[in-house]
């Protein structure tokens, strides 16, 4: 290598280093802005959350790798479940903005729609269950609540409607959106869903919402859900409705472990015996096992449980009836 070419090579290396340095600076600046937006999204509520989310979205797809990386890291750290959920939603906004937006355009909570329905109540579950790749929006709706949902303007109600009726309907719309998101989360197959649902089961603001979350938690088929739901079902300090909803969740979980848990509940806990036996009917559904592509496994597990349920003694008429139904389902 002669001197001239040596100089040229050194120059190219310097230039490359300079460019790399500039690029790194730019990347770290982007990451800093992303981190800032994510930090605010994690802690902010209502309009402030929406502002932070818009800030993140404005950064465009370039922000996605960093957000994705942060999500992967947070998702593997149980204590960071809340941050992980926000990050999963953020990934959704950066990768599928149109589908995510659909979560905020629900026909079923528009007065102009639901007031014409056969029962004039807002409903959101069906639409929220059909979000597809926009499902991560459910996480933020559950975490941030109704404050981030763009409900219809007051002018959307009939002018003749009394103010107190509008207020009542608005409350129902809010309830429908949040409860609908909780319920839809159960079937959304999102990594953060079990953690978010666990939180709602524990801290939800109404028993009905906690019930919905318990059922949805079972529906996630998360491995740890069996233990969580069993704990709730056996906790005498919890409302009976919630304990029974936990058994329903176990029925929807539909694994060997959840079947065994239901059997134990039916055997040992008279309070939830009937509910546990009813849940076994759900658990046993051959159509569901077929849909999972596990027909043979389902058949084997049903056979196994059938003998044990048949040997159970029941504590009341409700449980006896539930046992008959469960046995019929398990024998299919």
């Amino acid at each position, binding site marked *: 290598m002669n001197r001239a070419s040596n100089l040229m090579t050194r120059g190219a290396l310097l230039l490359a280093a300079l460019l790399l340095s500039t690029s790194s600076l730019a990347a770290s600046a982007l990451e800093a802005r992303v981190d800032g937006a994510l930090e605010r999204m994690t802690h902010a509520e209502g309009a402030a959350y929406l502002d932070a989310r818009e800030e993140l979205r404005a950064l465009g797809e370039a922000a996605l790798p960093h957000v994705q990386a942060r999500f992967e890291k947070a998702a593997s750290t149980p204590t960071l479940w809340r941050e992980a959920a926000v990050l999963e939603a953020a990934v959704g906004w950066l990768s599928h903005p149109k589908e995510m937006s659909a979560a905020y355009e629900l026909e079923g909570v528009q007065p102009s729609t639901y007031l014409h329905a*056969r*029962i004039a109540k807002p409903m959101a579950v069906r639409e929220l269950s059909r979000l597809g790749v926009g499902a991560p929006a459910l996480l933020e709706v559950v975490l941030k609540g109704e404050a981030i949902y763009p409900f219809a303007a007051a002018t959307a109600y009939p002018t003749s409607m009394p103010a107190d009726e509008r207020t009542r309907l608005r409350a129902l719309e809010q309830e429908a959106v949040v409860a609908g998101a909780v319920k839809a989360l159960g079937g959304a197959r999102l990594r953060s869903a079990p953690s978010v649902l666990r939180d709602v089961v524990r801290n939800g603001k109404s028993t009905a*919402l906690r019930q919905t979350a318990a059922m949805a938690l079972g529906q996630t088929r998360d491995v740890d859900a069996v233990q969580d739901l069993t704990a709730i079902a056996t906790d005498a300090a919890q409302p009976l409705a919630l304990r029974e909803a936990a058994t*329903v969740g176990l029925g929807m979980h539909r694994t060997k472990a959840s079947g065994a848990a239901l059997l134990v509940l039916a055997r040992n806990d008279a309070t939830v015996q009937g509910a546990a036996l009813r849940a076994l009917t759900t658990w046993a*559904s051959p159509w569901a096992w077929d849909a999972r592509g596990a027909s043979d496994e389902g058949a084997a597990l049903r056979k196994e449980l059938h003998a044990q349920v048949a040997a159970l003694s029941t504590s009341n008429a409700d449980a006896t009836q539930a046992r008959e139904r469960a046995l019929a389902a398990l024998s299919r």
Partner: protein
Amino acid sequence: MVRDVDRFGVLAVLLGVAACGEGVPNLSEAASVAQALEAPRTANIVVDTTRDGVIDGRDDVDEDAFTAERGAVLLANVDDDDGDGQRDGREPSLTHADDVLDLAPAIVRQVTGLKAGDAVRVRVTPSAAAARVRIFQLQDDMAKRLFEPGDTAGVLPVDVVAAGDVSLLVEGVSGRSTEWDGNLQLTVEIVNGGTVVSRDTASMRAAPVIFPDNLNSPRALFVQDIRTGQDNNTAFLRSLRAEMPEGVALRTHDGDRYDRDRWVQDSMETGYQLAPSVQGTQELPTYLLTSRPRPLMDLLPKELLGKDLGYIYTGGDDSSHNYGGNLEVAPPYETRTASFPFGRLLVGGGSQGTLLGVRNTEHMAAEQLAWLNAQDAQGPALELSSEWLAVGHIDEIFQFVPDRPSAARGGRAFKVVIASPQLARSTLVAHQRAGNGSSVVFRSRRTQTTVSTILNDEDLMAFNDLAQERIDGVQAVLTRALGLDASDFLEVPVLFEDAGGGGLDMAVALNPGIQNLVTLVTGEEGRLFVPDPSGPANASGRDVWQEATRASLADLDLDVVFVDVFNSYHLLLGEAHCGTNVEREPYAQAWWSLQ
């Protein structure tokens, strides 16, 4: 000879018009004959005991008991002959000539030999009847109020009774109810001081309101006309107009006038009262206004109420279990232990909870259900599990349809078209196995999906497995109660999905509920307007769910017309039956003949 006094004659007297032809009353002649027949100071009241629409000497026998053969009938005067927006029975006076036709005539025979201190009074017993009856006395071409609801007695002027027969008109202010079984004793007494000198009693009974079933010939179909918006029902109306059987009136009402409330099935249940008349029977179409505080609650009292169309309102809470879609009538049937010649009322409700096993209890409002049973004609109503449905109506599960070929063979005259998740699923499974898993279901609709997406959805399939189990339970109850067997049920493919609801998992139809069809079968034409299920297409381009439906209904020998209700009704939680209502002919048999 005693001249007949029929209702038209009474009308002529009431209004002082010159009636012509036979049947015009001549009270003075009647009175003179009566005078010759009655002993002095003898009370005698005569009603249309023979149920031929006239009052004559034959009525004055065995008049104190109401039996299958004898006893006068009273209608609840709940129509609005003068068109003032008020039900006539709620008005204290007769305001229109036609109103008289809805009242039952009675005659107090002339009393001779009355003494000083004698009084002639008319009483109504029991007190439950007295609280619901008004009596007019016809005098000098006028109808005077003689007895008001709640009165103890009405006093007839002695000079009038002494001068001749006195014509009365008995008005049912309201009909049978939980407080009153419709039985009524009309008594005339001659009293002096505290002593009853003479007394005579005649029995009457208020007509029940009877609800026809889907086998009865249709007269008119009600539907709202909603022309704008993505949920307009233009396509549905177009099909109805094009395929309406001859002789059936299509009665549309402006949807905008009722804030686009389209659920005309829910706001009312069409029925009738029947009384004897000179022509044979007199029908007063009488609908039940259901407890449903929505815009269409005004349709019946403000638009349909009129001459010869009345209504009853029982009150109740605002549960959707009160709506008309949750009240169906099984066609007449008989089992070893029971007979229901006017069919049987079926309602939805129950305590079995949701499909996934959450506790939930729902019933029709006690007031409304009790009133239905108090009609004592089509009850007791049979409750079938519908508490697992978001709307909660039995028309989301089944409908009765005529089976004329079977009837012609001497077999059962009806079939039950019942929703079947099993059939819906098996049809899709067959389609998938034929390599069509990616076939589109609900093409171009907001809920568009594919065959495989449906079949691979574990939660959806479990939900439908449970729905099928619940429907099987409904079928079992119907089978036992109506004496049916499996061949009496025609399954049509319907899937359900979970619509949530306050910690519950309430079900709604995923595809348009095919069983929620409209049955219009006249003497000549038989047509079923069936919700188009919008299923996947087979190799020939035919909808596999439609094909399964046609196969299921084939033996009925009825035209199957698929109607588009997807955006206009289905997405709003209802289908074709929910969006329509049908007034039908009464049963051929008169209710009093089966007392």
